[in-house]
Structure formats: C-alpha cells, structure tokens
C-alpha cells in the first residue's frame, strides 16, 4: 500500500515541476505583473538579433539551395572587421558596420566564385564539406591574426528606461538594423530588375536560364548579399557583446533552427522564426528550471520538421 502510494506521489511531483511554471505565467498575466513587459522587451530584442543572424543563411539557401556552414564565421568576420575599423581608424561603430557589410560582400563573391560555383551541381554533401572547410580556414586565420582572447569594440551604448522597462541600446540598435535590413532587401527583391531576377532564379533555375538570366551572376551576387547580411549581423552583435574567433557556432546553430522554423528561403519566416526562438528563450529561462527551455525549442524544431517540413512560410521564397 505504502510503496504504491509513493509510486503515485513521484509522478505527481514530476508533474508539478512541469505544471508550476505555467501556473506562474498565468498568475503573472492575470496579476499584470510588470516583469512581463520587461520579458517581452528582451524577447523582441533577442528575437531581432537572431532574425538578423538568419537572414543571410535563408537567402543563400532560398536562391541557391546551398546550406552554408560558413555562415557563422561570416558573422565573426563582420565582428572583427568592425573591431579593426573602429579601433584602428577611430571610426564610428555604425560606419564600421557599413565597412563590414562591404568586406563580407566581397568575401562572399570571391568565396562563391572560387569554391562554391565549381561544385554547385555536385552532391549536396560536397557543399557541406566545402563550406565547413571554409569555416575552419577562416576561423584559423582569425585565430592566428587576433589570438583566442575575447575582443570588444568598447562601445558603451547605454540603456534606455521606459516605464520601468530597461532596454539595452546596443540590442535596440541591432533590432533596428534587423528590421531595416529586412525591409531594404525585401524592397530590393520586389522592385528592382536584379531582385526580380534573383527571385526568378530562386523559383526556377532552369527557367531563368531559358529567359536569358545570367544565373552564374545571380549566384555570386546572392552569395555576396547573404554574406553581407551576415556581416551586418556580426557588426551589430559586436556593438553589445564580446566575441572571439569561435563565437559563430552559437549563432550558426540558432540560425539553422530559425530558418527551418520560418521556412527555407523566406525573409518573413526568418524574422518570425527569430522572434519565436527569442520569446521561447526569454520566457523559458525565466519560468522554467535550469535551461529546460532548450527542450521546448528543439521539440518545436522537430515538430516543425514532422508536421510542416517546409516551415511556417515554406514555399514563399524571399
């Protein structure tokens, strides 16, 4: 009788560990706890950064079907470019981010022409291996050049306080840049001839060739733009975080999750995916014990792959 009672109590206590966080959220919502506003602000800011880091990845995949494992290290190149330009020339960090965008665009074009284009028609695993190789080479070069020590551009952005809600300005700038980048790239794709050519190529590469679009040119421009977006993201992150040659891995993993959630090749999907991860991470780490929110993120990831493998905005390229 007693053991049986204990056997019932154990699952009950385990159940309460799952139920308690949700009852706490409900209590805070019903009680209009002001901390919710703070959490929403952090979730938006974090989601914005994550969305920004995923834009370039989703663009390259959407147009070229290339899964770019070097995307994370592109961010890191953006961070270090911002650092060098800021500290060497005393340039305003925002201008330095602009330089990082240009540097990454050039790097993306060069990388595409030299190692991606020759294997575009090869099996998918070749692209994975080549981009992974590029990741290690670039990472090693950065480590040799700058060492493994964390770096900082020393930008003190300060904090904005609105109605008791603290908003770190560095992250706010990153969110603004994410929105701006999304709008600019979306407008470019919608309203320019080159943008239309890119979308046409994304929809049907063979068809695009038949109607006279220079697909090779579109490929390297797309890869360059994707890399430039990564440079923008890296420069933005450098505004508020320390970084080292290995900082790209965390952002790469998040970017893959976001892109799959939102839909491969979809800009709105990348933004929404970033926001979903941002909200799950912030609210999960506040209400759930330890870092169990990660379970929720990956359950969502697996669930998306099972139920809607094309993602939330799947099929709606760029």
């Amino acid at each position, binding site marked *: 009788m007693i053991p049986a009672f204990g056997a019932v109590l154990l699952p009950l206590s385990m159940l309460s560990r799952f139920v308690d966080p949700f009852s706490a959220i409900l209590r805070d919502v019903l009680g209009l706890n002001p901390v919710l506003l703070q959490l929403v602000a952090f979730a938006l800011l974090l989601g914005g950064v994550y969305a920004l880091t995923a834009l370039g990845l989703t663009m390259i995949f959407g147009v070229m079907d290339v899964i770019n494992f070097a995307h994370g290290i592109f961010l890191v190149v953006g961070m270090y470019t911002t650092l060098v330009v800021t500290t060497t020339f005393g340039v305003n960090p925002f201008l330095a981010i602009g330089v990082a965008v240009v540097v990454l665009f050039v790097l993306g074009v060069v990388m595409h022409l030299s190692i991606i284009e020759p294997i575009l028609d090869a099996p998918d695993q070749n692209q994975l291996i080549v981009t992974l190789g590029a990741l290690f080479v670039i990472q090693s070069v950065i480590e040799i050049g700058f060492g493994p020590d964390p770096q900082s551009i020393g930008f003190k952005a300060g*904090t904005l306080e609105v109605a008791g809600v603290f908003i*770190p300005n560095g992250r706010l700038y990153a969110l603004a840049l994410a929105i701006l980048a999304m709008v600019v790239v979306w407008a470019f794709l919608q309203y320019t001839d080159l943008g239309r050519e890119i979308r046409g190529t994304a929809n049907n590469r063979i068809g695009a060739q038949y109607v006279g679009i220079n697909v090779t040119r579109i490929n390297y421009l797309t890869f360059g733009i994707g890399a430039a977006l990564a440079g923008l993201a890296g420069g933005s992150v450098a505004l508020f*975080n320390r970084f080292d040659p290995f900082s790209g891995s965390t952002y790469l993993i998040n970017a893959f999750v976001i892109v799959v959630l939102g839909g491969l090749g979809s800009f709105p999907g990348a933004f929404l995916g970033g926001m979903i991860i941002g909200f799950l991470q*912030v609210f999960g780490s506040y209400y759930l014990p330890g870092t169990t929110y990660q379970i929720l993120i990956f359950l969502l990831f697996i669930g998306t792959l099972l139920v809607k493998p094309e993602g939330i905005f799947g099929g709606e390229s760029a």
Partner: protein
Amino acid sequence: MSKREQSAVSSRRRYLKLAGVSGVAALAGCSGGGGETTTSTSGGTTTGTTNGGGNVEEVIIGSNHPLSGGLASTGVKMDNAVKLAAQRKNEAGGIEALGGADVKVISGDNQGEQSLGGQVSNDLIDQGASVLTGCYSSPVTTAATQAAERAQTPFVVSVAADDAVLQGRGLDYSYRPQPPAKRMARDYAEYVPEVIRQNGGTIETAGLFYVNNSYGQAIRESLNEYLPQNGVEVTVETALEYGADSADTQVTKLKQSDPDTVIATTYVPGGVLLSQAMQDQDYRPPHLTACASATFLDDEALADIGDFANGVLDNNYALNNTIDKTAAVREAFRNQYDKGMDGSTGMAYVATEVIIQAIEETGSTDPEAINETLSSIQVDDHIAAMGTIDFQENGENANALAPVNQVQDLAAKVVYPEEYAEAQPQI
C-alpha cells in the same frame, strides 16, 4: 560506487603506496640501450627519450587544454603556465634524479569539447607523455581522465571543479590539487558570509547564477546543501546555458527576488554577461559574490567589466601572493607571454610543479612508477594559497583550499583566511 568498489580502490591505492621505492627502482631499471625507454601498458606505449648510453634525455608531460573554442582564452594561458613550469625546471638544471633530463611539454587541443578530452589524452600518451595534466572544463576532464586511466598513465588535474571528475569513479591514476566543487561550496558558505558579517554587512538570502553543465550544477547543489547551515537561504536560482550570448533574463529573475547576495558560478564569458546585464538593468545586490567563478580572477575580464567588478567577493583557488616565489613566477609569466597569471593559470602551474616533483622523486619516466609516487607525495614548494599538497585515497588533495578573493582596483586579491591575505576586505 558500492562499498565493494570503494574497498577495491582503497586497497589498490594502499598497494601502490606500499609498493614504494623498490618497485620504482625495478621499473626504472627497464631502460634499454637502444635509444628509447619503452614501457608497455594496457593502453599503449609510453616513451621517455634516452641517449645512446641509456640515460634519459627528456621526460614528457602532456598538456590537455582548450587551445581553441570558447574556452581558449584561458586554456592557452594554462597551457603556457605548464610550459613555464617546465622551462623554469630546465633552467634550474632539469630533473636531477634523471641526470639533468629536460622536462618537455607537448600540448593537445581539446577545444573545450567533452568528445575530444579522451582522444587528446590518448594522442599525448601515444606521443610519449609519461604524465598528463588538464583540462579546465569538468566534462572534458572527466573524459580525459578516463582515457588516462585506461592507459594507466597518471593525470594531475590542473583545473576542474566537478566532484564527479574524481569521486565515485574508482580512478587510480588521477589526482587533483584544487578543491572540488563540494569543498569550494563549503568554503564559500563558511568564509564569505563570515567576511561580510565581520565587516558589518548582512547576508541572509542568496540567488544562484550558474552555468548549466556538470561544474555549475555541482557547485549549485553543494551551495544548496551548505548555505542553510550558515544562515543563508537560497531564494532564487537561474541558469545560463554554456555559450549563451545574453544574461538579461537571468538578471531580471534575480532582480525580482532581490536576494542579499548573488552568487555567480560561471566561466569567464558568463560572468562578463552577468555584469553587463546587471549594469544594463541598473541592478546590483548588496553583495555581488561568486563561487569558483573564473571571471573575477581574470585580469582581462576585470578590465572589460570595469569598475562594476570592484568589490566582488569570489571564493576560489588562488595564488599565494605572500611568498616571493609567486611574484617571481608571475613576473616570468608576464614577461614571456604578456599576460597576467590568474588563478586558473596559476593552478596549471601548480599541477605541473606537482608532476615535476613526482618525476624528481621517482627518478624514472615510467608512468606506473610516477603514479606510485603521486599517491603518497607531499608538495610544500608550490605557489597556491593552500597547505601541503597531499593526495588522499580518492586522489583529492587533503589540504585543498578555496580562499576568498576580492576585486580591488580591478585586481583579485586574497582577503581571507588571514594566513594568505594580501589585502583587507572592503564591505
């Protein structure tokens, strides 16, 4: 571990101690004249280089640390500390017991990845290491010591806090000079509240901020056990994932609970994120403290955090700055590597000092013989703020200590116990 297993381990260690010098001499006599001293072990072959006459020319120490990846900043410094200890020994004439043989350090990069810990140990052993040291990260050290155990090669932990790295695993070849998590948490619970209260402060509630891996979890569990015994209640806990890029939410959670102290247990990046998020939210508890956290001992991190770091109390392994030797070692390190020697770096140096003394006492490059010496060694001549290093049956140092450091003028200074204090606490 079952009592039977414990008993087996104890018996094995007692046997090692009893084997003594006669066994060492016998094993040392295995030197061949063909240019190599080779001892077959179950795990492979270990080699000490000899000259044609059979004298040992060098003895090899394997340094298994994160030289790339997120922990590389500290890992590289620790690896350099191992090399410096070897270099200073060589400059002083090498291993006397081996006719002035050089101490050679070979380095392996575990990238801070548990999956590579064992592989790097095996590689170093295959390259001829007679004894290993590492690894900074507890999960990596767990894997690395397992591989060393299989190869029957001694392993002196440089830094790794998790109790489970050594305890309950039946290891006969692993030793740890630094205090394990449970001891560090116990020292925190005993010393830090005492320092605060003795200097007019109040501490009744605590919030735990920890990195969510085996090291962070081990400290967290032990703090939950010991703090209530010292009149401090844990009112909130919040975890940071390894490699996170923000601690905003965690700080919001701590701020909501508003404990008397926040206790950080993180690697260097986590503590920087914590400080940054606290400043962003205009929050600082009455006492910002840390337990076994690398952040508030790291010169570069303190410079990065700025004045906000001043006043932080952190109980952790530390260097004994009351002796001249420590100053000389720190100066040599800075001259050679243009970096400050912090606590973690210092412990890598200490681990190498232990290894070098063991080789000297053994008079052999044979791993089994060195292991026998380590099991009963007494090391007084070291630069750590602790007493004689004396390994117990389970490989833990009986006299390990985690003194209280305080950041003053952006430098970590030991403030308690008085025996090792270099400054007065400022509460």
